[in-house]
């Protein structure tokens, strides 16, 4: 019996090892080809980058140059970090207010936020990008406003769920002791909300960092503010001969920051995603 069990476990272990190989193959494929001369990529896609196939960092130089990678990285970082900060701060304040101040309008507002979660982006993309143009929000800071607005539904919903579980007495005691709502919020509520704040921050960071359509429609490709997904699509979507060498290098460069972030915050990311899925 015991032997059968170890045998079974060995089998599962081997199976998992094979699956891991299958899972990392695409990434290795891209990594390998990023060091090959651009014309060998389509001719000999599975050959190792050796001998005449090896192109050194040529593809990287071209990819960085043609797609403006460093600028795209900078703008992706700028928009993601500021938007996530703004979303966490403002939506948690809103969630606290509409959960504690029980009026008809705050209840209605809550339901509109929840409703917005089921609306696909395509429903509003045309009108939203035109409105953003009219309001001069077609720049990186304007994007922050749009992300706050479109991301508010999920974030307010998640914070509200958590606020409902905080005993009212703590806040009342703070206010009795002379704290105004701002002080109560920053000294008492926000620290209690920290776990949810991490979840909300991670979910929004993953969305905003990878988002393509919103920055493409609002900021476009004719500006210096391209984000990474927009820059990748710009390199490949334009007409003319496709430069697969530059593409491979660019794909590797786009994945590196994600993997670094993942390795450092893995625990929070997986926990955050599970918590987000369960509540959303």
């Amino acid at each position: 019996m015991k032997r059968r069990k170890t045998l079974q476990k060995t089998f599962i272990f081997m199976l998992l090892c094979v699956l891991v190989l299958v899972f990392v193959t695409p990434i290795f494929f891209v990594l390998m080809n990023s060091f090959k001369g651009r014309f060998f990529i389509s001719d000999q896609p599975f050959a190792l980058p050796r001998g005449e196939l090896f192109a050194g960092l040529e593809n990287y130089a071209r990819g960085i140059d043609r797609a403006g990678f460093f600028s795209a990285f900078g703008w992706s970082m700028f928009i993601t970090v500021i938007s996530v900060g703004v979303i966490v701060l403002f939506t948690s304040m809103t969630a606290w207010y509409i959960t504690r101040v029980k009026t008809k309008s705050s209840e209605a507002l809550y339901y509109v936020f929840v409703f917005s979660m089921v609306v696909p982006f395509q429903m509003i993309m045309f009108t939203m990008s035109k409105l953003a143009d009219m309001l001069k929000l077609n720049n990186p800071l304007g994007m922050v406003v749009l992300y706050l607005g479109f991301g508010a539904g999920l974030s307010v919903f998640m914070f509200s769920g958590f606020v409902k579980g905080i005993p009212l007495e703590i806040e009342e005691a703070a206010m009795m002791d002379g704290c105004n709502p701002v002080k109560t919020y920053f000294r008492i509520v926000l620290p209690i909300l920290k776990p949810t704040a991490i979840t909300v921050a991670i979910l929004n960071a993953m969305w905003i960092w990878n988002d393509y359509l919103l920055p493409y429609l609002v900021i476009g490709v004719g500006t210096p503010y391209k984000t990474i997904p927009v820059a990748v699509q710009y390199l490949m979507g334009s007409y003319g001969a496709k430069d697969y060498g530059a593409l491979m290098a660019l794909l590797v460069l786009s994945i590196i920051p994600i993997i670094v972030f993942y390795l450092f915050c893995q625990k929070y990311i997986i926990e955050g995603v599970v918590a987000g899925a369960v509540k959303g």
Partner: protein
Amino acid sequence: MEKTMKKYFPLFVLPTLVAFLIAFVVPFVMGVYLSFCEFTTVTNARFVGTANYIKAFSNQDFLRALIFTVLFAGVAIVTINVFGFLLALMLTQKLPGRNLFRTVFFMPNLIGGIVLGYIWQSMINGVLSGFGMTMLMDAKYGYWGLIILMNWQMIGYIMVIYIAGLQNVSTDVLEAAKIDGANKLRTLFRVTIPMMMPSITICLFLTISNSFKMFDQNLALTGGGPSGKTTMLALDIYKTFYDKVGFEGVGQAKAVLFFLIVAGIAMVQLVLTRHKEVES
């Protein structure tokens, strides 16, 4: 407390509310109205009744995209959930390197749709080039390509949710089943799966809505080709808006239909599986 808090409405709620109005409420209301209008920019709208909705079905594009999306979603939802569940079952046993396996399987989920699409485009074209073909020669390559891509992206995500669910199944009940003489398979289908209905609801919801709303991966992998045969709903709406002049109203009508489809499926699915949860 409520009274003092109300004075702070401008600080706590107004920033989120203004952004929410700009990025969601106004574009949504405008979008619904404009679906009954003819327009090129949002300011020159002329009411035309249901003409746009009729036009949306005047050629095959929308219907074909709907059928393709349903065929895609049907297979993707089943495969992702089955594979994700099997992986979760394997990874909740005591195995060496368990966390490393989880880390690797989850990782593709963090990579954005555009980058994912190009990774797989080069991989699949690399394999097909061995047979002298490309992905754009036959729609079936694009179809299976999308399914493989979606599985690669979502299996790890679904897996971590199932792992969390499996860890919540009480060991008392499992032991009771064992004492009563139930074998492993019977325990799985009669005890574990019924007790995991909440996780299954969430995973089905996530896979269905992600499959129906897929855009970035579709754009990067096939761009809808060959000749529009692998265009999914979101991409078809995008093309109606931006690739044809004078079809903005039709695009908006399609977007409204898309919203109704996505919201409708989500509702039906939630009601159905919640119903099952109560029974079990």
